[in-house]
């Protein structure tokens, strides 16, 4: 099977295999990605993030339905944490999206973080590119439950939805540092619950402060704050209206393409860093390492010497 060609024509088996190779760091993955890269850059990537228990999967499920109603093909990347102890993971986000399993216009992929910090898996970016190349119009990326600074999603997504819920107490406190500054659409899920009004006021205040602090040359977008009850599909059309508006505005202003470009640049730098680290680790001077292990030199001195003694990297 010519995986690259097959996935470009929408072959699910081929696309799924390419994603697996990329996730596994199998070198065939990079080859496929090179072939299909010119066919990417079209899909709107929408991040779905918020604290654990906010209803990210349930909301994603409802938003898939709404996107399908609007005639779009939908890819989903659902990320769950990998156990740092065993390296294993239980990926259960599909359970709440089961109604879309047999829809040929929907592709759902569950991934483990595999040691990657920041709320995404190390392969999330690559997976989005493959889904984009397969012709999915919209890609939802559901992050692990995040706290304050797991905001990698913002660098990846064109549009980021931040989900809060009433009654988590210090929740706004917990997310304001990172997420409140970066979200494009804010949703208070489980809006039928007690405490909704208080949570709404907290969010509004935060958004107001953010608006005040916005630089004059920033992208002209005021994040809406929307209520939803995802389990009953309530408020979902309004959310997709907002992500549609945001997407149109990005495309019309040229910002959409600029964001995609910045993303690929960041990815290239990240891959370079990863590769350089691997090479440096392989070539670390054994003598220096023995010296620091014997406590003859301190770790700072050892690190300085290790960098100094790195042999020049040869082009492979």
């Amino acid at each position: 099977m010519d995986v690259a060609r097959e996935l470009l024509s929408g072959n699910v088996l081929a696309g799924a295999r390419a994603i697996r190779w990329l996730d596994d760091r199998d070198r065939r993955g990079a080859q496929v990605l090179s072939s299909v890269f010119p066919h990417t850059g079209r899909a709107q990537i929408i991040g779905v993030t918020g604290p654990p228990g906010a209803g990210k999967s349930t909301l994603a499920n409802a938003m898939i339905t709404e996107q399908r109603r609007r005639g779009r093909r939908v890819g989903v990347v659902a990320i769950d944490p990998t156990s740092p102890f065993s390296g294993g993971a239980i990926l259960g986000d599909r359970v709440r999206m089961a109604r879309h399993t047999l829809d040929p216009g929907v592709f759902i992929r569950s991934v483990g973080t595999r040691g990657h910090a920041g709320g995404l898996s190390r392969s999330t970016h690559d997976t989005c590119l493959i889904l984009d190349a397969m012709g999915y119009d919209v890609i939802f990326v559901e992050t692990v439950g995040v706290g304050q600074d797991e905001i990698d999603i913002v660098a990846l997504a064109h549009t980021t939805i931040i989900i809060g819920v009433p009654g988590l107490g210090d929740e706004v406190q917990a997310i304001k540092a990172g997420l409140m500054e970066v979200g494009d659409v804010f949703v208070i899920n489980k809006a039928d619950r007690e405490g909704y009004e208080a949570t709404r006021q907290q969010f509004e205040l935060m958004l107001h402060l953010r608006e005040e602090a916005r630089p004059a040359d920033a992208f002209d977008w005021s994040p809406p704050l929307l209520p939803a009850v995802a389990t009953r599909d309530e408020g979902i059309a309004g959310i997709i209206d907002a992500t549609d508006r945001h997407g149109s505005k990005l495309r019309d202003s040229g910002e959409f393409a600029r964001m995609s470009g910045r993303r690929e640049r960041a990815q290239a730098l990240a891959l370079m860093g990863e590769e350089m680290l691997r090479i440096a680790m392989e070539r670390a001077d054994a003598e220096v390492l023995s010296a620091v292990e014997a406590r003859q030199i301190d770790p700072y001195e050892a690190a300085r010497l290790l960098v100094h003694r790195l042999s020049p990297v040869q082009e492979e």
Partner: protein
Amino acid sequence: MQPIEERPLRVLLAKLGMDTHTVGVTVIAHALREAGMEVIFTGLKQTPAMVASAAIQEDVDVVGVSTLSAGHTRSLPTLARLLREAGAGDKLLLAGGVIPEEDRPLLEEAGVDRIFTMGADTRDIVAYLNQWRATRREERD
């Protein structure tokens, strides 16, 4: 602490049929995770078509189905056939739950690779998967 596996085995666990007993499948999911595998759980009341579709999208190595409500003599062969027809017949197909001894030949003939019935030790399942994986790696390399 064991080293993190660079290429963990991916296993889909699904419940076929109308029963809602999740204890067995939950115990197995945790055992597989502890053994360093990625377990994708698809939920209850799945049909063979849903399991096949999810297994393909997730590109799992192993499909494990638990069935406690009879009907398995039809649903399991259907699942095996759907996977084959979709070009995914290389996935290991395991069945667990309440499966009478006399049904084994039919299921094995239909493409079920291994049956673990009630009371199976999770360590045996982990050992079986690791061994399967080792032999498959040799075949590939």
